[in-house]
């Protein structure tokens, strides 16, 4: 019986989740408003010190490939990983997190099948708030020169029929300046006399004829008188962050660690030449890990783009996508066509670690080969109407980048890691109709993959002998070795559908509906080392619809994804995973907002029921997730308008056939964010509880009379936080305290996390921030008790 890799992966992901040393939690936000750049984070409830790295994989709903970004690490006393995505989703966002610990173990959030059952958050278009009825006409960042003529002009056009003009009030930097403003039927205009360098905050308010007070957002403008004017219109930013972490406990030796990151970026323009550069240097850079430092220089002319250093080129989803290449990418752009070339390293070589002992040497850690990526793409047409692309990508591990000691196990003399060679050729096309309201697209790619190129290409005779065939190829493998290494490890040796991948999609926007239908097939032997294309041997049908109603304040989305393996019937059984989901988010103006989400996934194979003394890996697992969230900004509370939020999440994962596990997790989170009107203070009070009930049959149990073990435990967390604002937000001190504890059928443990810190803006261009945090960990097992202290300092200089 063939091993079912799919089942193994699912069981592995579940078991990893169950026995994880890192306990992480993420609650998807109710929704994003259009034009809002998502900031996402997850909390590490235990094992923060063991997390080596966290990555978010994300995509616009409807897209078939994920982008990836490294997440920013918090501190021991603020144990979160966060990221601000470099995209603004239009309809919705799908994402999942991958957490890697220092023991080279990976965890995912969500735990099960994250690629096909990711978190989903929908986008609700920003409702027309009353304050949006005020339109700021001037200053306009593209036209106004506020150093010389600082004119504030706010349009009343949209509300001119229902406001009381006598109630209009303009407040500038805390002063009522209405009597010096000109108010006409449609406009309020105020001229700032001789503006000085600094930030100007202003807000207009008025009463409607119904007596309701409406306010504009608080606008702000910077009058920048730069200390130094750089040539070529250059601007940029230097940021340095230093942090110190100190550990004190019984289990490990006391230790102190100090690190610094420096990030310098600048951009400018000379005539039509645009340039941008980024330099990130970190003391975390370690030759035994993949690079942390980043160097990039981008130059562009209307007909040419050049990226030097680190860059993530986007070709097509099966060829080159979402991978950082350190090298160059260059695009020549003509009117109706373009040509792009990329060359560089997608991984650098890392030496392995040899364990020397009297019983024989062994490799404690295997090495990594340098991986070189070369790619070309020709594109004809334009995205707005029709575009066709032809792409080629080659990824090859440099066998000379690692000495044999670092990839050959000295005991077995077998390689523990092998250098690979990979070629992908693909073509894609996209057609847009009705002003891009209807978009059709398709992509097909074929890969050639050699999983081990040690020894190089074989002669034709040797190859035939190894494969026990007598094929008369027109060209010998040795003759094309520089292009692709052919030996017995090529997968597959005879190209066919198994080493292809293709997809087709339709996107339609009509009647406030965003409909997306996609179909993709990835063969079991398709390999692309330069793309995040998801599962191999997978057929995926995905249908998604997002509907906006009630003036875009109500968003309903529903969809179904069906994933099955055994695409070309090479396996005995086929596993099918069906995932359907729906979410409703209602974000009205001035009223409570809510979100309800339901996800159900069902994974099963078509193996028959096993007979007596017969082992058949029959498999059926279900996963259900229900989320309810509600928020209300109670502005009526005197002195301290408060935003209340509540969310409730129920998660159930169950092995339906073998009853090996049945896990339930309930999480409730309450929070209140208050903004004090008479004090420069805002506070947050938050409480979160997670109750876990895990039932499972121990592996050694008697199958005829299985004894189910039930484990119940809970996690409680309280967070108190206060932030103050002084000197027009230039000084912002804060303090927070988090108390959390686990209780129940696991070793009891308590954590107290405290932080104090402040942000200070010395000038418009210079700011500092510092945080000091303490973490106290206590366990029923007293030997595990420890304390951690961390300090962080951040400096930012813009120019």
């Amino acid at each position, binding site marked *: 019986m063939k091993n079912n890799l799919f089942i193994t992966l699912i069981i592995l992901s579940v078991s990893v989740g169950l026995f994880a040393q890192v306990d992480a939690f993420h609650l998807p936000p109710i929704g994003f408003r259009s034009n809002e750049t998502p900031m996402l984070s997850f909390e590490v409830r235990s094992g923060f010190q063991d997390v080596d790295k966290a990555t978010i994989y994300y995509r616009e709903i409807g897209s078939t490939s994920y982008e990836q970004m490294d997440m920013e690490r918090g501190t021991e006393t603020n144990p979160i990983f966060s990221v601000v995505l470099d995209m603004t989703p239009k309809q919705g966002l799908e994402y999942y997190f991958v957490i890697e610990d220092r023991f080279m173990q990976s965890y995912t959030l969500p735990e099960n099948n994250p690629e096909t059952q990711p978190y989903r958050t929908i986008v609700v278009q920003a409702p027309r708030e009353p304050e949006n009825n005020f*339109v*700021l*006409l*001037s200053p*306009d960042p*593209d*036209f*106004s*020169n506020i150093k010389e*003529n600082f*004119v504030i*002009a706010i*349009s009343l*056009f*949209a509300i001119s029929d229902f406001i009381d003009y006598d109630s209009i009030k303009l407040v500038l930097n805390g002063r009522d300046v209405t009597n010096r403003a*000109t108010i*006409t*039927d*449609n*406009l309020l*205009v105020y*001229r700032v006399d001789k503006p000085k360098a600094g930030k100007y905050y202003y807000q207009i308010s008025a009463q409607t004829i119904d007596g309701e007070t409406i306010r504009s957002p608080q606008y702000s403008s910077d009058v920048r008188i730069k200390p130094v004017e750089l040539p070529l219109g250059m601007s940029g930013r230097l940021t340095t962050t230093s942090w110190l972490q100190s550990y004190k406990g019984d289990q490990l030796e006391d230790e102190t660690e100090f690190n610094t990151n420096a990030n310098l970026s600048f951009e400018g*323009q000379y*005539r*039509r030449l*645009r340039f941008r550069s980024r330099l990130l240097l970190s003391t975390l850079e370690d030759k035994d890990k993949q690079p942390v430092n980043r160097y990039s220089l981008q130059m562009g002319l*209307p007909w040419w783009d050049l990226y030097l250093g680190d860059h993530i080129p986007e070709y097509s989803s099966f060829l080159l996508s979402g991978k950082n290449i350190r090298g160059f990418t260059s695009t020549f752009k003509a*009117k109706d066509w373009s040509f792009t070339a990329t060359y560089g390293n997608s991984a650098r070589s890392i030496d392995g670690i040899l364990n020397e002992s009297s019983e024989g040497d062994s490799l404690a850690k295997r090495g990594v080969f340098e991986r070189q990526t070369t790619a070309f793409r020709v594109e004809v047409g334009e995205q*707005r109407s029709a575009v066709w692309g032809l792409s080629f990508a080659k990824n090859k591990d440099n066998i000379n980048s690692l000495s044999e000691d670092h990839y050959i196990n000295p005991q077995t003399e077998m390689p523990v890691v092998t250098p690979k060679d990979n070629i992908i050729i693909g073509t894609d096309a996209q057609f847009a109709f009705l002003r891009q309201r209807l978009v059709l697209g398709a992509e097909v790619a074929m890969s050639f993959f050699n999983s081990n190129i040690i020894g190089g290409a074989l002669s034709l005779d040797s190859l035939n002998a190894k494969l026990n065939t007598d094929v008369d190829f027109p060209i010998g493998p040795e003759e094309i070795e520089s292009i692709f290494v052919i030996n017995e490890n090529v997968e597959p040796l005879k190209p066919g559908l198994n080493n292809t991948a293709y997809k087709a999609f339709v996107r339609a926007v009509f009647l406030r509906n965003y409909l997306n239908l996609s179909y993709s097939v990835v063969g079991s032997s398709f390999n692309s080392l330069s793309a995040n294309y998801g599962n191999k041997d997978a057929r995926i049908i995905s249908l998604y619809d997002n509907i906006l109603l009630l003036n875009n304040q109500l968003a309903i989305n529903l969809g179904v994804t069906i994933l099955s393996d055994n695409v070309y019937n090479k396996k005995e059984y086929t596993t099918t995973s069906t995932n359907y989901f729906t979410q409703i988010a209602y974000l009205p103006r001035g009223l409570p907002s809510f979100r309800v989400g339901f996800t159900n996934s069902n994974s099963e194979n078509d193996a028959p029921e096993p007979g007596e003394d017969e082992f058949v890996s029959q498999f059926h697992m279900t996963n259900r997730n229900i989320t309810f969230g509600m928020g209300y900004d109670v502005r009526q509370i005197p002195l301290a308008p408060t935003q209340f939020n509540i969310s409730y999440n129920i998660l159930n994962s169950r092995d339906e056939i073998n009853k090996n596990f049945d896990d339930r997790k309930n999480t409730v989170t309450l929070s209140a964010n208050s903004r004090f009107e008479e004090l420069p203070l805002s506070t947050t009070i938050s409480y979160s509880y997670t109750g876990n009930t895990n039932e499972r049959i121990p592996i050694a149990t008697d199958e005829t009379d299985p004894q189910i073990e039930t484990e119940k435990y809970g996690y409680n967390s309280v967070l108190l936080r206060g932030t103050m604002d002084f000197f027009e937000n230039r000084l912002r001190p804060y303090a927070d305290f988090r108390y959390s504890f686990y209780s129940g059928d696991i070793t009891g443990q308590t954590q107290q996390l405290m932080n104090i810190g402040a942000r200070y803006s010395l000038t418009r261009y210079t700011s500092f921030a510092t945080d000091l945090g303490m973490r106290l960990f206590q366990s029923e097992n007293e030997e595990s008790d420890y304390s951690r202290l961390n300090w962080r300092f951040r400096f930012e200089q813009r120019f």
Partner: protein
Amino acid sequence: MKTTIVLFILLISSLLMGAEVDHVALTLQTNGEIILNRADESTPINTGELLIDKDELESMEESYAAVKFVDGSSVLRLFPLSILQINAEKNEDELDKRSFLEVGTVWSKVTKKTGLFEVETPTTVISVRGTEILLEVDDQGHTRLYTFSGESVMRNKADGLEATVQKGQTSFSTGVGMIDVTDINRDELPDEYHGYYDGTETPGTIEIELKNDQGETRTIRIQLQ
């Protein structure tokens, strides 16, 4: 009785007049000498000037003006030696903008759709459906239109002939007969418009290449900001 009727009509008229849109636009920024012709008066204006329906702006040599309508939907930039009349009226909740370019050059950008946006010339009417156009009118009323994004429609006033001008296209009309639509040839485009064509033009910046008698060229970069 007649007096009562006349007074009633006057009252209604004054109420209706009071309901009309008053200020329809303002100057975001001016450089050089911009003259405002309102009724029979001509006055130089600066940044922050409020404009009403039928106001006429005239730009002198090396002078520019950026004008924004009160619905926040669109911006016009007047180039040197141009005359533009601002016409706009409220239509329910929207502002219909029908400006008139008598001569010269105007660039416009429509960022959101709130009401009509048209620019009339002595011989044609341009309806802007997209986002960014540039319009030139010579002293004979001949009109050239460049569409840099979106699409626009040019219509002859005399014979009603129409042509759709897509992104990357330019059209030319003498006001009568065929409207010539071709792709924009960047090399034939005046240098100061290359930035619009390339999409790299900073809205607040204009570059002009000047050539002296000796054939030496010099580029002047005018910062509208």
